[in-house]
């Protein structure tokens, strides 16, 4: 029982980064812009999160540092988001290509910068003030649930907040209606007197920064610094979560949790000696196979925004 609680707790740790990354992907796709660049945005977020927190520490900001890192990631990833906006909106480049570019560029640029800033180092200096699990008073003492849900990192609760608020904005407010409309049929949004370009612009800008929070989370809660392997495919898993979650914030959350669970469970199973017989690779396969199965079970129902990947031009009917 306690074991299961721990597994859930672990699942959440993995899931949060994915969820944030996925929320970013979801947002831009809701506005009609395919986002294969999530990986790149997460890399950027991890990098800026790391150096942000590091320099904050050198300024003796102590416990504030990880928060600064989070902000740095959010803000400076705007550089890459802006590039993505330029490519996909202004220059009407193919969204998929642009995503590939973002992934390539942010990876190479950040690794290069690490070498540059920290004379040839392969990773950024480790930060001593990382986020710590906080035990929510009272709640964390509830037998099972306490361990499972209420002893987690600030970023967990941040992600949860973003999901709740995000879902509210997307489905209850005018701006949400307009964003969804843009992804479904920009023509109708335009002729309703709304600036489609503006909506896409800000959705994509924010999208990158949200995904960046995911990358930063990995650095600030688990890794403690950034190296060329900090983000190794999580961005693509996040995209899977978007599809699993059918472009809905809560759905995305469940998708991320599923994958996180598959990750956490593999550590748990492995330490039972009784499983020695099973080749370790089986455990490595688990998360991906489980995700595939989940997709098989839900896939057929998932519905992408209709105008996803198209370029809007008011003069073309």
């Amino acid at each position, binding site marked *: 029982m306690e074991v299961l609680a721990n597994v859930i707790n672990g699942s959440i740790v993995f899931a949060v980064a994915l969820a944030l990354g996925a929320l970013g992907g979801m947002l831009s796709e809701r506005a009609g812009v395919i986002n294969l660049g999530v990986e790149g945005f997460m890399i950027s977020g991890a990098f800026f999160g790391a150096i942000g927190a590091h320099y904050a520490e050198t300024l003796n900001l102590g416990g504030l540092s990880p928060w600064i890192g989070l902000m740095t990631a959010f803000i400076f990833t705007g550089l890459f988001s802006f590039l993505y906006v330029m490519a996909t909106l202004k*220059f009407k480049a193919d969204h998929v290509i642009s995503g*590939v570019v973002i992934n390539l560029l942010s990876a190479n640029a950040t690794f290069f910068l690490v070498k540059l800033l920290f004379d040839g180092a392969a990773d950024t200096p480790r930060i001593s003030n990382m986020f710590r699990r906080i035990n929510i008073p009272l709640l964390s003492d509830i037998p099972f649930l306490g361990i499972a849900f209420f002893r987690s990192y600030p970023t967990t609760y941040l992600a949860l907040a973003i999901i709740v608020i995000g879902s509210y904005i997307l489905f209850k407010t005018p701006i949400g209606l307009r964003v969804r409309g843009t992804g479904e049929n920009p023509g109708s949004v335009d002729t309703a007197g709304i600036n489609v370009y503006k909506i896409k612009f800000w959705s994509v800008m924010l999208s990158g920064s949200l995904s960046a929070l995911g990358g930063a989370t990995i650095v600030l809660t688990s890794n403690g610094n950034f190296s060329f392997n900090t983000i190794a495919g999580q961005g693509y898993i996040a995209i899977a979560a978007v599809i699993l979650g059918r472009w809905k914030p809560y759905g995305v959350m469940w998708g991320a949790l599923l994958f996180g669970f598959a990750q956490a469970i593999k550590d748990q199973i492995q330490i039972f000696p009784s499983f020695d017989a099973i080749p370790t*690779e*089986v455990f490595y396969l688990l998360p991906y196979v489980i995700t595939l199965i989940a997709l098989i079970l839900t896939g057929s129902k998932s519905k992408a925004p209709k105008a996803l990947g198209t370029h809007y031009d008011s003069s073309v009917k």
Partner: protein
Amino acid sequence: MNAVAKHMKNRNILVPILATIIALVFGAIIMLIAGYNPVIAYQSLLNKVFGSAYDIGEVIRAIIPLLLSGFAVALANKAGLLNIGVDGQITIGAVASLLVGTLVDFPPIIHGFTALTVGVIAGGLWGVLIAYLKTRFTINEVISSIMLNYVALYLSHMLIRGIVPQEGSQRSALIQDSASISLNSLSELLNGARVHWGLFITPLIIFGFYYFFNKTRYGYETEVVGLNNHAAHYAGIKVNRIITRTMFISGAIGGLIGVFDTLGVYKYMAISTSTSGVGFDGVAIALLGGNTTIGTTLSGVLIGVLKYGSQGMQFGAGVPSEIIGMIISLIIFFVAAPGLVKKLLPNMEHTKKEVQ
């Protein structure tokens, strides 16, 4: 009409060329800022590429997988599929040919050929798996590809450690000499550069791609499916069958890459923590080449040269290879957004009217 055709040609050739030049300049600027000497850097890059017979041979070895990967992706693109699962298909092709190459006893040539064929088919079937998930369960191929890449990787570890392990080493046993597809005599001429059958097979694949789409009915129906699958269905074309067929060929080409690595380059398969990433290079190359025969070929060669040369840059000028990575991504960026190139070079106005 003729003028139009010409104009199109100019445009298609010009943009990538300009993009490359601009990107290289950007790279130089970055190097200057970072305190490296771009002249020496690019010098040593070229040196590395054309410096010796060995290097020329090795560049070819480096370019082959990139070309094949590019065409594997381009082929799928033509049918409206984004195959970013080439990495997985490479892995499966490699491990399949490895098993045949180590376990069975055949005379030379025949052994190599059998192992090659098996690897190619295995890669193809791995591609079909993606097609099946798409046609049967409507699972987006991008996602299934990514998942299957990991599955392929760990599956290969399992097979290597379980069936053809090498005692005390982090790799499989060596394949038998009879299974080797190296071109030994040529390799000697090139001071040991690892050239293999791919030298002849790759051009065949490229020509095949050209022929398939420019001449055959099968290419035609594949394009129709890619452009408008509703119309294809209305026209009585079995869309799912085309998708499956295309993914088989695409995966088979991916498998071929793995086969060349195993039987032609390494002679064994290592237990590595991640897949090669050549599949993702392929996506970039295909997109850069606009899924055309010439375009994909040129961009494959270009990226191969840059990647291989980056080692020389590190050695000669101490420039980290990430610079090359940045340059490559910039090239793709400029090609994908020709309007930007136009902005950067206003005088080139007429060459780039389109953006659509």
